[in-house]
């Protein structure tokens, strides 16, 4: 871990939700650094704030206070439009339920984030084919999500997440909807992304077996981050 530059720097992050007149604190003074090419697992009981923290790092939610720097960008100071543009190029998303668009083929789903770039049709095709090759789904590119198994759909989602070559990948329970064999396959793929492609992955999971694949496991409880992360290096 030594010698690596932090790619995510979080300082004194607070987040709460409002329910009627009630204020429900979710994250309480979180300070955290995540290094480049790290594979971090966030664990904790339901409602501990794991997904909220992940959403804040990915720029799809707003903190009450504190700063989040990803790469050299303080994303807490970006406007909604700037944040959307930043997400498009810097974050790859992997969700529990894959979140593929059902009317688009695997190829078209992976191509979606590239529609926001200036790439030509030919370049987009090359990028998509490469991403699908990495997840070993080149032969399924014309299949629709409904024609793919859960594991295959998650692999398409991973291809979509990496196709823009983002700075970080965020994964929210990526194996939560998969059988054991598919889950092992997906975790293996994520390990490959870190080791072979040098990606940084932040993964929220309930599954201790999935967490063990990560380099570092951090625990959140009632919005407070465990001060002593388990290091599996």
């Amino acid at each position, binding site marked *: 871990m030594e010698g690596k530059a932090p790619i995510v720097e979080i300082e004194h992050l607070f987040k709460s939700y409002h329910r009627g007149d009630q204020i429900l604190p979710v994250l309480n003074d979180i300070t955290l650094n995540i290094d480049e090419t790290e594979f971090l697992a966030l664990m904790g009981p339901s409602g501990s704030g794991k997904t*909220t923290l992940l*959403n804040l790092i*990915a720029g*799809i*939610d707003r903190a009450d206070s504190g700063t989040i720097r990803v790469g050299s960008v303080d994303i807490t100071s970006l406007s909604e*439009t700037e944040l*959307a*543009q*930043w*997400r*498009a*190029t810097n974050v790859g*998303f992997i*969700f529990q*339920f894959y*979140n593929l*668009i*059902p*009317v*688009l083929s695997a190829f*078209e789903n992976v*191509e*979606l*984030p590239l*529609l*926001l770039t200036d790439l030509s049709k030919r370049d987009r095709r090359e990028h998509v084919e490469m991403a699908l090759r990495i997840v070993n789904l080149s032969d399924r590119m014309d299949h629709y999500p409904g024609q793919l198994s859960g594991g295959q759909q998650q692999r398409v989602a991973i291809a*979509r997440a990496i196709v823009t070559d983002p700075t970080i990948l965020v994964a929210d329970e990526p194996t939560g909807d998969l059988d054991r064999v598919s889950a092992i396959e997906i975790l293996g793929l994520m390990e490959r992304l870190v080791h072979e492609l040098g990606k940084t992955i932040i993964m929220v999971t309930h599954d201790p077996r999935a967490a063990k694949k990560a380099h570092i496991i951090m625990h959140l409880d009632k919005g407070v981050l465990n001060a002593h992360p388990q290091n599996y290096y």
Partner: protein
Amino acid sequence: MHILKIITKNAFRHKLRTFLTILGVAIAILAFGLLRTVISAWYAGVEASSASRLVTRNSISLIFPLPLSYRDKIRQIDGVKLVSFGNWFGGIYIDEKNFFANYAVEPKSYLELYPEIVIPQDQKKAFLQDRKAAVAGRILIEKYGWKIGDIITLKGTIFPGNWDFVIHGIYTGRDKTVDESAFVFHWDYLNETLKKTAPMRADQVGWYMIGVTNPNLAADVAVKIDNAFKNSLAETLTETEKAFQLSFISMTEAIVIAIKIVSFLVIFIIMAVVANTMAMTARERIGEYAIFKTLGFGGWHIARLIFGESLLITIIGCAFGIALTFPAADIFSSALSTYFPIFNVATKTLYMDIAASILVGLVAAVFPTWRAIKIRIADGLRRVG
């Protein structure tokens, strides 16, 4: 992959729902188109009227006649080029349900004044030579299967008795605005008969039709004509042919307004139907829109997807509606030719159809778009699955 491809795929995701919505739009556009065509048909006479023609009638009412002697006085007024005259005959052909316009005119000046009434030269010659001759419009001829030389008997209502006419000509319109369902015969035939049967009613005309030398002088000429007969037993009211036609329409203005209101209500109803479809669609896909936003697509992209889908549905519906309007108008025209002799789908109506469908598509997409753009990504993602 282009955004249009996503729009098309989204639009036909629920085939039955989309088909029914398109059908609804098509029927609404058909109804709207037909109602607008009815309104156009109502104004057909106005559309066909010429700026260089005036109509002079009794100032009290059209049902009161004017003396034939006015013709020569009108002729002498500056700016008057040609004078013709006519009487509404109101004859019945076999049965009252066989209604069509029939009137007596001074044939030579009438045909000269109305060049839009086209009659083959030989038929025109035959018509002018025989006092009992009549010409009928193409639609009338086709409807009753008349032929040249047929003797047609009309039963007089205003002028009692059975009146025999010989069909000597079939006229057609120079353009689509000309009524091809009228029956025209010699005023002399009517007048000569009246001299024998009702001398008090002879030498009276229903209205004068006047051609002016310059359309720009029409208003001045009208004033001069009316001034010439001021303080006479039969004062006149002279107006442009357009104003004369509009005076008829004003009698039924309430009906026209009602039809106009109904035509817009049809559009309003279909707007509600499409808005409901789009609202359902957007509600179902709110999670997907959140995914799009997660991937970096902005509000403008989401708006394009929803507006595009809504417009695609309404424009397809509009295309089907317009395609159906023409055969429907033909059927309508055949069935109601007596009441609407000119029943053509106007280009303006088609533009209104297209404008209405675009408006419906845009309005229907506003609320779902606002909702999809406003929802927080985290909230939207919770609705996936």
